[in-house]
């Protein structure tokens, strides 16, 4: 029953998160809604259940760290941080504006709660590996979570980082692949077939899981299994998701990778999210 309440509460939070991030992008008239929405449920469970954080002490050394390697979906991260009170909600109105603390891609020097600056794809996993090695050597219990895109695994650097994570047996590193099947120019299948991502990560020495990235219970469950697992291996969670999830006209449409909605689209999107189309 307790578990059920938790699931219901997180599902409500996910709705609020989707509304907040869309409002942020709408007001900025610039940003990336597709991948923000596809990762919204993963981000909900991370920021409202799994990550150990102190919003009023963003640099708490023993925190769980989060690396948004697919930096362009920062609206979902900024919305989480604001909703968790890392900074006032009003800051969201300034996304991508001149002088804002909320840059077009995450900037650790400006935004409380952002652990590393990202934006050029394929680089975040290496940073996450560095953090995980440092925590391991400092006997710091903080874990490192890294969210990356499926298209992003085209970058060879992702595999360099994977080799290193495997070498150092980083079981404090959890990669989450937002496997929404679309990238900027088209479907992943057309641009660069991802094949079986779990098999690839297994071949690079990872303990892998495949889940429905929009199922709150499944996401909760995978984190529980990872916490219980003792294997001396880094983890890769391949989360099957839908780009633009929750907004009918954005779902699985490549064009919504990096485009802001107009007023009519925005109002319809908010209505659909409230009605829980997802």
């Amino acid at each position, binding site marked *: 029953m307790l578990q059920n309440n938790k699931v219901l509460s997180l599902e409500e939070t996910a709705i609020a998160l989707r509304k907040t991030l869309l409002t942020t992008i709408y007001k900025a008239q610039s940003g990336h809604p597709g991948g923000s929405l596809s990762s919204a449920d993963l981000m909900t469970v991370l920021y409202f259940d799994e990550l150990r954080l102190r919003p009023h002490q963003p640099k708490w050394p023993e925190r769980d760290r989060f690396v948004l390697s697919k930096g362009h979906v920062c609206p979902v991260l900024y919305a989480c941080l604001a909703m968790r009170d890392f900074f006032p909600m009003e800051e969201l109105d300034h996304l991508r504006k001149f002088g804002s603390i909320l840059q077009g891609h995450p900037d650790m020097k400006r935004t409380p709660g952002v652990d590393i600056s990202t934006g050029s794809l394929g680089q975040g996993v290496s940073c996450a590996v560095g953090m995980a090695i440092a925590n391991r050597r400092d006997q710091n219990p903080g874990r490192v979570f890294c969210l990356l895109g499926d298209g992003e695994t085209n*970058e060879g650097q992702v595999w360099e980082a994977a080799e290193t994570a495997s070498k150092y047996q980083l079981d404090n590193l959890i990669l989450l692949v937002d496997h929404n099947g679309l990238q900027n120019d088209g479907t992943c299948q057309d641009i*660069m*077939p991802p*094949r079986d991502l779990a098999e690839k990560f*297994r071949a690079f020495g990872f303990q892998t899981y495949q889940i429905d990235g929009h199922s709150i219970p499944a996401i909760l469950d995978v984190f529980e299994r990872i916490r219980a697992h003792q294997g001396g291996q880094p983890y890769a969670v391949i989360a099957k998701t839908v780009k633009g999830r929750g907004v009918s006209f954005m779902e699985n449409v490549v064009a919504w990778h990096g485009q802001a909605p107009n007023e009519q689209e925005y109002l319809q999107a908010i209505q659909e999210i409230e009605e829980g189309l997802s």
Partner: protein
Amino acid sequence: MLTEERRAFLTQRARQARALTLEAIYRVGRGHIGGTMSIAELLIALYDDVMRVDPSNPSWPERDRLVVSKGHAAPIVYAVLAMKGYFDPKLLDTLNANGTTLPSHCDMRKVPGIDMTAGSLGQGLSAAVGMALANQMDHRDSYVYAIVGDGESQEGQVWEAVMLAAQRKLEHLIVFVDDNGCQVDGFTGDILNMRPFDQKYRAFGWHAIYVEDGHSFDQILDAIHQAKQTPDRPHAIILNTVKAKHVPGAENTYQSHCFSLTREQLDNSLRNL
């Protein structure tokens, strides 16, 4: 299956390639011995038995191409090219010398028969993929071969190229991984273990073959034959090799990657061949 006679001939050729290489490196004073010796049989198998090339016309468009991505293995590539008649073997005396046309790493602008400049690790496979794509688009049936080091495979660019080759179904691309187990700073297993290579290549959609003895002509040629029988996928042939093969005292040591040969070591090696 090779005839006894053919096997003996190829063995003799590999012996000659090693000797020419060691002598050239000895004259320079220092050089990449480990990773040249580990691919002697492979190069001889390719140039004497497999590749469609014309040494009198190195830029023949229909030729098979070879990209030696581990460009530091240049001395033995030069030795084999000289043996094939691409240029006068006397040139090998000028390896690395001031004004030479045979620089320490493979150089397509200076050496007839070299299809791609190399030297910075991890980059050659991309070029080989580009060549195989050009052949595919021009409907040429030529093969592109590439030799990639095991340590080199730690470079992410290798895996970028691997993904593209699989997507484009480059069945006329054959990549050899010289899995000699050593890199500059140590054993690859200690530095950054990439084994098992065949599992990784398969996970990325390739046809992969593991060759138990990467110095056996029978096994190398058999693997190439198998590759050519397998359609729709690029091929990775993982060669289990010995770094500094046939150099007494240096075999299977990472210190053999680049070192100075004494006169005694050279003589010992030549006798040992």
